[in-house]
Structure formats: structure tokens, C-alpha cells
């Protein structure tokens, strides 16, 4: 009894208790909903059977139906373009800004803080503002492009199937850039200054210093940011709701918006869950790639 108590305080028992708590929390808060979602994807669920558990199992029919729909592959491709485009834009601009503020001119830290304003704003508000900016007839963006002579005729960002997805990507890049910048700034400030001094003495130029010191030292930060970016872009729903509603004709529809549309507009909860499961599979693949790529990292 006494040994059990002491192991609870310090030893194996304590470890098990910690693990059990974390596992229990995960199971309750993430595992159960996840399993529930997967189960739902094999059932026919509508408004009336949503509150009960006795729902007809339909096997793989939701999946077969889903992939037989003509819009499925375009929407999956849109999701890929949205994720890659958003992350690339947010990361590159964010990194550029982080390097810029790293120069540490007077007021740099203040200004860097102010950049976070865009991150703090709710997605629906950002969406409403970009809705105006991207508006076809009277939008600010069209006005600027026209006045600078880049375009002759207005681009209907929200309503032209060739542009609508990119309209949302632009808004999402604006929304996420500052968050990327802050995290990257933290990473940059963690690189010891003497590394650069030594490199400079050895005659490395700025480009070589960036390529051989900054980037390798930032590896874990960049990995984390890309992983977070993937999560944030796959969660991005408000901008779609506010700017294009996935239109026109699904040209800017992505899986996360589509899952909501199926569940809460057409009340086909089974199909909505099916789309979510497809998303989970893709995120797991991405997560595995991320874990593998950072496995060899030297942790200090």
C-alpha cells in the first residue's frame, strides 16, 4: 500500500496517471467525436435520426455516392489549391516580413505587434471587408488595378469561376500572414548571433548565411508553421461563407465548406460526415509527412 502510494507520488504510478489523464482527455474530447463522425459516415442520417443512435447502416453507399457526384473531384482539387496557395503565400510573405523586422530598426517591435491586428479579427469580419474590396463593379482592388493600368476591364473576383477561388486565397493570405510572421520572428530571434559573426569572418555572404545558417536553424519552426498553416487553412470556413459561398457553381467550394453545406443546408448529415472523414484521411497523411520530416531533428 505504501509502495503504491509512493509510486503514485514519484515513479511508475505517477507516470501512468499522467498518461492516463492525457489519454482520457484525448479520447473524450477528440477520440469520441472522431469515431462518432466515422460511424455517421456509414449511416443514413437526417434531421430526424440525428438525436437517436438507431440509424440505418448503409455500408459504403455514402462514399460511393459521394465519389460519383460530378462536383467531388473539382472540390478536392480546389481544396488542394486553396491549402497550397494559402500556405505558400502566408509563409513567403510572413518570412519576408519577419526578416525585414529582424533588421531591428527603431520601432520595429511595435510595428511587428501591430501586424497582428489582422490575425485578431474574426474571419467573418475579414470576409465582409474583403467582400467589398473584391466586389466587381465598385471594388477597391479593381479600382487600383484599373488605375495602374494592369487591367482594362473589371475582374469579377467573386463571380468569375476562374478567379473566385483565388479571391478567397488572397483574403486568407492576408489573414494568416501576420501569424506566420510572428512565429518566424520568434524562431529568428532564437538563432545565436555568434554563428553569423563566425560565418562573416569566414567570408560568407548574406545569401550564404541565410541558406546555410538561418534556414537550417529555422527548420523546426518552419515545420511547425507549415503544420499549423495546414490546420488553419483546412479550418477556414468564414471567408468562404462571407465572400463566395463556394460559388459560382462550386468554383470556389472546398471540402470544409461543402461538409457544412451538406450537413446543415441539405440536412444530409451522413454525407457531411463522409466528407469530413475524407478530410481526416488527407490531414493524417500530411501529419505523417510532417512527423517523418522532423524526426531526424536534433532537439536541444
Amino acid at each position, binding site marked *: 500500500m505504501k509502495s503504491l502510494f509512493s509510486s503514485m507520488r514519484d515513479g511508475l504510478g505517477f507516470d501512468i496517471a499522467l498518461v492516463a489523464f492525457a489519454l482520457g482527455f484525448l479520447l473524450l474530447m477528440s477520440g469520441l467525436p472522431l469515431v462518432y463522425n466515422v460511424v455517421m459516415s456509414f449511416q443514413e442520417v437526417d434531421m430526424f435520426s440525428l438525436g437517436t443512435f438507431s440509424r440505418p447502416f448503409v455500408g459504403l453507399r455514402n462514399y460511393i455516392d459521394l465519389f460519383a457526384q460530378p462536383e467531388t473531384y473539382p472540390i478536392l482539387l480546389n481544396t488542394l489549391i486553396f491549402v497550397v496557395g494559402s500556405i505558400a503565400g502566408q509563409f513567403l510573405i510572413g518570412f519576408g516580413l519577419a526578416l525585414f523586422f529582424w533588421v531591428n530598426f527603431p520601432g520595429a517591435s511595435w510595428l511587428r505587434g501591430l501586424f497582428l491586428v489582422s490575425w485578431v479579427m474574426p474571419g467573418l469580419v475579414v470576409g465582409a471587408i474583403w467582400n467589398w474590396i473584391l466586389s466587381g463593379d465598385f471594388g477597391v482592388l479593381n479600382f487600383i488595378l484599373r488605375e495602374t493600368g494592369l487591367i482594362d476591364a473589371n475582374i469579377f473576383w467573386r463571380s468569375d469561376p476562374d478567379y473566385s477561388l483565388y479571391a478567397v486565397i488572397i483574403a486568407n493570405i492576408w489573414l494568416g500572414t501576420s501569424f506566420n510572421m510572428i512565429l518566424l520572428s520568434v524562431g529568428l530571434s532564437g538563432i545565436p548571433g555568434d554563428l553569423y559573426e563566425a560565418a562573416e569572418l569566414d567570408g560568407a555572404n548574406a545569401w550564404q548565411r541565410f541558406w546555410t545558417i538561418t534556414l537550417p536553424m529555422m527548420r523546426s519552426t518552419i515545420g511547425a508553421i507549415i503544420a499549423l498553416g495546414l490546420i488553419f487553412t483546412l479550418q477556414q470556413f468564414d471567408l468562404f461563407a462571407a465572400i463566395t459561398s463556394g460559388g459560382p457553381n*462550386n468554383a470556389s467550394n472546398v471540402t470544409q465548406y461543402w461538409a457544412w453545406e451538406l450537413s446543415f443546408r441539405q440536412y444530409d448529415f451522413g454525407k457531411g460526415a463522409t466528407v469530413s472523414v475524407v478530410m481526416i484521411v488527407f490531414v493524417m497523411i500530411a501529419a505523417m509527412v510532417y512527423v517523418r520530416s522532423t524526426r531526424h531533428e536534433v532537439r536541444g
Partner: protein
Amino acid sequence: MVTGMEECLSQDNETEEKMSFRKYAIIGALALATSSFFGLNAQAEDVTLTLWSLDRDIQPAPNLIKEFNAQNNGIKIEYRQIQFDDVVTEAMRAYASGQAPDIIAVDNPEHALFSSRGAFLDLTDMIAKSSVVKPENYFPGPLASTIWDGKNFGIPKATNTIALYYNKDMFKAKGLDPAKPPQTWDELVEAARKLNDPSANVYGLAFSAKGNEEGTFQFLPWAQMGGGSYDNINAEGAVKALEIWKTIIDEKLASPDTLTRGQWDSTGTFNSGNAAMVISGPWELDRMMQEAKFDWGVALLPIPHPGAERSSAMGDFNWAIFATSKHPEEAFKALEYFVSQDDKLFQNFGQLPARSDIAIPKTGQPLKDAALEVFQEQMKYAKPRGPHPEWPKISKAIQDAIQAALTGQMSAKDALDQAAEKIKGVLG
């Protein structure tokens, strides 16, 4: 409020013991505020009903309830406001878990979803006996939306429809007769071409082809005028209608943003003088009276050819009683009271009653009165969407067809054929 309650209680000549029980019952009830709880406490004098609707404090439901409760007729109604987007999901969840309210206001295309599954109470017999609610007093469209399987599962709460607003000043400026708004589809396109003036940032027409319920709401009347319907969406006339829409978009007689803009925003461009005509409903009247700095009028929706059948959309909510209500008689009494106040619906809240026997009183504003007359006329031709329990899926097929055709990804014929195929799958 609590003091009032206690005074009320102290007037009772009951034993101390019972009084304290009641006090606790009421306090408990206030905390729980569920209909089932009240069902258990039948000793309580007042029958308490719960009512859910999306009306804000300046809209009908809360005010009608206040008036009703003030009558002290032994029935008290508790009100809960729900957001538009949550009405169906909240109601369903509540129904599935036995917590449904007694009365609910539900959007008319969603009505059949509930009635077909037995969630709403069949009111046919109560209405037959009622001296207040008379089916013959209602416009056929709103009434039809409450009917499922030949039985009456609700009462229209208010109604609206769409018609053509046009800018009379622009008509004059472009040599069109403001007393003769376009009557047919061809005339509409012709007028839009004349009124269209890109150099002045003016589009000929504004409407909504958005990929949500609004798109269906605006297109279905055109399909119906062309002899189509939701279960015959690829009728020749419906294809013609979509081709007309495509002409309007292709020739930029309406903004390309029509595809992603709702009716409210589209009408905004009319009010600001950036569109010469707009297809929208009477809910715009108050805003237009304030914003539009020009002379305007309203005309019936143009028809395919002279003498063709008229049609229009039908919007707004219906009252219904949940089948699980413990007090159906009292709930119906409440609805009867609401119906008896229909004649003040427009005056007090700016909403059109769904009744053909009520004349809308003159507002004294000539533009508005003239417009209301047209909307009352248009209301006669308004048809419900469905009614069908799977309406959202049918509507989605129609929206997809509209957007596929207008973005040029499919021909109007192919798009509507595909929609017809999808709808056939839903109808079974």
C-alpha cells in the same frame, strides 16, 4: 417581476403548505422553463406555452405574445428568439429529445419536412371548427405551403413575393414610357439593353442568381411561368427562361456579381442608381423609400408571352404546433389570436398578411401604396416551393443548374436536364 409574482400568490386563499409548494414550483419552472415540466404541474392555474420564432422585438411574434399574455385568459406564452440559420436544426434537436416548443414559426419551404414526419400537429379539424381561421381567406400559395398529404399542418404567418421594381427617371431619360414597364421577357431584355449604360455605371437589371435558396426563389417563378415546375424543371419554357437569364448575364445587362450576390445587396445597387430595374420583394419598400432618390414603380413579373400564365415566388414563415405539445387546444387558441391580428400586420410591422380578404390600409405615401397594390396582385400568383420534405436537395439541384448555365459551363438545356435527373432521384 418576482414581487409581482408573490403578490399574485398572496391573493390566493390556499393553505400555507400548498403555497410554498407552488412558490417552489414556479421558481423551479422559471429555472427550467420547459413545456414538459409544466405538464407535470397541472395544478398551476395558467397553462404555459412556449413559442419559438426568429422575430426580433420590433417584429410580430414578441409583440403579439405580449398582447396575448395581457389578456389574462389562463394561457401564458413564453417566447424564445432563434436565429434564422438555427430554426430547423434547433427545432429538430428539441423535437428529437422531447423538448420541442408548443408553437413554432418555420420558413415555408421547410414546413413539409416537419409535417411529413409527423412532427407537426394536424390542424385540419381545429381549423374546420374555428371561426377565426378560415382557409378560404388565404392566398392559395401560402396556404398550400402548410398542406401535406391533403391535411393542414399550419397557418401562414405572413407572406411576401417578388415583382419588378423600375426606375422611372431612367426610363424617361432613355426614351422609354414609365407608364409602360416591360410586360414580357423579350420586352424586359429589350428595356434592359436600352437602360444599360456602362459609362455611367448603370446596369439594365439587377436580380439574384446566388447559389443558395435565394437563387431558387428568384428562378422558380420564371420556370413556372414557362410551364415548368420543380418536378418538371427542364420544361421547354423553363429552359427558355434560363436562356433569357444567360442572355442578360452574357450581355452584361446585369452585373456578373449577380451570381454571388443576394437579393438585398442587388437591390442596394438599384437604390443607389446603379441598376435601372431590380427583381425583389416588398421587404425592400421601407429601405427604398429612404434611399432611392428618384421616381420608381413596381410592375408584375414579366411573362414569356402575352396571355401566358403568371407566377411568382412565395416567401415568409408559417405557424405550426408541434405534435408533442401537451396543450394543443390552448396553442391553437393562441394561433387564433395571432390570426385575428393579421389586419394590423402591415401597419405595425411592415409585413404582408397571407390573406386575400384583408385590404392593406393606405400608408399615405403614394410610391409605397402603388407598390403594395402590385404586390397584392402578384401575391395571387405566388406559388410555394414544393411543398416537399426534401426541398433543400431539390433546391440545390436547381441552384447548381442556374450557376452551371450562367457561368457557361453547361448549356441551359443540359444544366436543367441534369437538375431534372437529380430531382427525379430525390422524388423517388
